């Protein structure tokens, strides 16, 4: 079997430093070849989602679609320390990724926002209106709720140890004093914390010209899409946005302890990108 894609790693210039970029180019390339720009999740979730990103790249390059993944400043293999990162910088880096796709000759661009990356993708799409569609994988709708869960990891990590667990209120006090907090090995600066805290899908309700395809991964048939997610989708639709929602049964690969895959999500996303209505 011939290699279905060409893998081209490299660095692009971002606002604050070089950003690591991974470009999967399909074997056959035309002027109309579409490109999916992946906007990754946050902290440990970013690592846990990597393999799904690779699988998606393999699946869609085989159907003639390119994939571009750029690590935001201070994350992955890009320059900068996590502590130096800010939400605004990450939005700018997401825009830089779109501009890089344009430089690579891709005129048809979609963005895939994974978890917290969905909020970044929505913010970036407002700055680049050529984006043809947004695809979300289990999007985070409220930065504040995501941070609460993130801080809880810090509290949960101290269960059963001698150390003082601390409370969310204490951590917020530390941040208000201008200090970073360390959660599960990641130093989060006040700037990044407050940036994420103010991020919410409701801030992007004027984004109505870009169709959105929203994937929810449910652990089993018994689980339901969170009510808050449905509300965001309804509000978007009321504003005139075209929002389609699709549920897929699979494990929570973004939080799994072991490397875990949701192959049905890959199949469904590839089918959606190929415009196959039978899979919708």
């Amino acid at each position, binding site marked *: 079997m011939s290699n279905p894609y060409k893998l081209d790693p490299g660095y692009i210039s971002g606002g604050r430093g070089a950003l690591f970029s991974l470009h999967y180019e399909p074997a056959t390339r035309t002027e109309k070849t579409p490109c999916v720009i992946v906007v990754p999740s946050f902290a440990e979730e970013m690592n846990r989602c990597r393999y799904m990103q690779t699988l998606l790249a393999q699946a869609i390059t085989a159907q003639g679609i390119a994939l571009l993944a750029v690590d935001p400043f201070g994350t992955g293999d890009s320059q900068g320390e996590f502590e130096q990162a800010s939400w605004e910088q990450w939005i700018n880096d997401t825009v830089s990724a779109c501009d890089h796709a344009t430089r690579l000759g891709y005129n048809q661009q979609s963005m895939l926002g994974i978890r917290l990356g969905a909020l970044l993708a929505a913010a970036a799409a407002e700055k680049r209106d050529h984006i043809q569609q947004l695809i979300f994988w289990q999007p985070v709708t409220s930065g504040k709720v995501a941070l609460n869960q993130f801080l809880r990891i810090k509290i949960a990590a101290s269960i*059963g140890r001698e150390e003082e667990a601390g409370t*969310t209120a204490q951590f917020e006090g530390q941040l208000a004093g201008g200090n970073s907090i360390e959660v599960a090995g990641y130093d989060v600066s006040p700037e990044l914390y407050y940036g994420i805290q103010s991020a919410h899908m409701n801030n992007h309700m004027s984004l109505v010209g870009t169709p959105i395809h929203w994937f929810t991964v449910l*652990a*089993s048939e018994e689980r339901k899409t*969170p009510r808050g997610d449905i509300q965001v989708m309804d509000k978007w639709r009321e504003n005139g946005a075209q929002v389609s929602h699709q549920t897929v049964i699979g494990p*929570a690969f973004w939080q799994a302890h072991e490397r875990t895959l949701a192959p049905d999500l890959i199949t469904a996303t590839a089918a959606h990108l190929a415009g196959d209505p039978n899979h919708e």
Partner: protein
Amino acid sequence: MSLQKEIIDIINDVLMLDGNTDDFDGDTGLLGSIPEFDSIAVVSLVTALEEEFGCAFDDDELNADVFATIGSLTTVVQQKLDE
């Protein structure tokens, strides 16, 4: 379905135990007993319980007593539902 059974189902989903929870009961240990039950799993489980039952956990409820066994966790969730 009993509350305990519902909680076991949620634990099965969150920890991806693949249905190996048939012999789970109130005495089944969680923290320190199930290897998959790390700090991220605790947070995932709490989030799933909050979504499913529409309740809220306080920071100080993320402790070793609450997550000792399925029974201890069920008792805490039951108290929240009775509030």
